């Protein structure tokens, strides 16, 4: 098959996955339902435990960094929520295909279905956390402005990139099981070198360009900064589009190229 033919075969898998969105919905939702099914507060725990974590983080870090709580706590809170949205699906992706082996072995199912379910699940979690973001707005009154609109394209681009990256990770990690551990470590290091617990301003200005080489920092800024009334560095949009486009070429190509073998890696 030609390279182009393989690419098209890969895209067909993405399409087939979209057609079985109902299964993706059930898969994505089932874990959340099971986790909170017998607790009295139920899914409220999703928002509650995030709130507890981010407020604790925000308080401790603002003391350690000697920053005003009014600015730093909402920053830490919203950053962590967005960080979870970006990285949780990537981490889940490593074992997602083998975990759903029973599904793939029972009926013809496109692998994209499971990938969609991972990202969808994080979107549900994010939706539960919106209440915290609103709480931060009401209580701390960050300098929100019209740039808030940019949150929408930022989120869309991030979700798109997440889907492609999660699928790519799933492919590699299913074939090479060492990659599962590798990814976990990469995400842990990314947590340190990305402005999650600190602000980009803490870096000396002359080193700020380093962040443009960190895709986590770029996508995090795209989705988070509008929510805090902060300005997204201009070149970040271009970089994010470039990364997403590259992934949109590589991932479907690999899916198509290995489509005959993926089932046997699971």
């Amino acid at each position, binding site marked *: 098959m030609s390279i182009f033919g393989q690419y098209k075969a890969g895209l067909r898998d993405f399409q087939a996955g979209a057609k079985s969105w109902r299964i993706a919905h059930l898969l994505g939702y089932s874990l959340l*339902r099971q986790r909170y099914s017998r607790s009295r507060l139920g899914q409220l725990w999703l928002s509650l435990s995030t709130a507890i974590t981010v407020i604790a983080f925000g308080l401790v870090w603002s003391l350690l960094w000697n920053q005003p709580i009014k600015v730093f706590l909402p920053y830490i809170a919203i950053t962590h929520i967005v960080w979870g949205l970006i990285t949780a699906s990537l981490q889940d992706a490593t074992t997602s295909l083998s975990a759903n082996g029973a599904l793939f*072995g*029972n009926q*013809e199912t496109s692998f994209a279905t499971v990938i969609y379910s991972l990202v969808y699940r994080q979107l549900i979690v994010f939706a539960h956390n919106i209440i915290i973001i609103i709480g931060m707005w009401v209580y701390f009154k960050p300098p929100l402005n019209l740039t808030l609109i940019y949150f929408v394209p930022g989120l869309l681009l991030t979700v798109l990139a997440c889907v492609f990256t999660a699928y790519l990770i799933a492919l590699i990690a299913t074939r090479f099981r060492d990659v599962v551990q590798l990814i976990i470590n990469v995400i842990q290091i990314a947590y340190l070198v990305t402005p999650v617990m600190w602000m980009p301003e803490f870096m000396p200005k002359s080193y700020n360009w380093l962040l443009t080489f960190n895709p986590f920092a770029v996508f995090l800024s795209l989705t988070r900064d509008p929510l805090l009334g902060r300005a997204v560095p201009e070149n970040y949009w271009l970089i994010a589009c470039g990364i997403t486009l590259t992934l949109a070429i590589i991932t479907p190509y690999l899916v198509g190229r290995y489509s005959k073998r993926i089932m046997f890696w699971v």
Partner: protein
Amino acid sequence: MADIELKNVDLVFPVYNARARSLRAHVLEQLGGVLKPQKKHVTVQALCGINMKLRDGDRVGLIGHNGAGKTTLLRVLSRIYPPSSGTATIRGSISSLTNITLGMDPEATGYDNILFRLIFLGLSFSEAKSKIKEVAEFSGLGDYLHLPLRTYSTGMALRLAFASGTSIVPDILVLDEMIGAGDATFREKSLRRIENTLDAAKILVLASHDLLLLEMYCDQIIWLDKGKIKKRGPTAKVLTAYREALS
């Protein structure tokens, strides 16, 4: 219309051990490093040169001892395994009642689980909702359907799965061993229901070790041995040869 055509289908399973799954070994291999890891991983030839053509109305039984390739062939017919070489053309909706509890959630109610099963079988939400009543009635679980599935006994859960799974008639029905569920009264009911489904499906492929069952439901038999078709033809003829070979 449903039809199945396999041309010269081979299926080779790669068996991955820790070494074949190791990224380091793979990179070294690509670089031609000094440490020469074994180039080839172990493979299992599960199917070899399978040719078959099935049309509407065909009722096919698959026989062969364990490891002969029955389940693998069923999975090729269900479009789960792509052939390693050769072509498989399969047209029509497929249902394999192999894992009939797939997608069920112990924390959800019986009603919800019926819905989940029907969605996994490919229905839309509105189609599934319109079928729930019939499935619920057939399952005979009554008010238990309002309780979470985890409170059910194994038999009750199976009844629910069976009732849901057999409520849809696919073009191609693929069965790995006959299924049935429940106690004596339900058994009879379920037998009638599965027979209806078997009759209504356009193509039936049934793998089984129960020769009497195959005689009842199949008009042709494919005998697999070590991944190859050893013999095929009308049920009586092939089964006689098979019985002779066994004794």
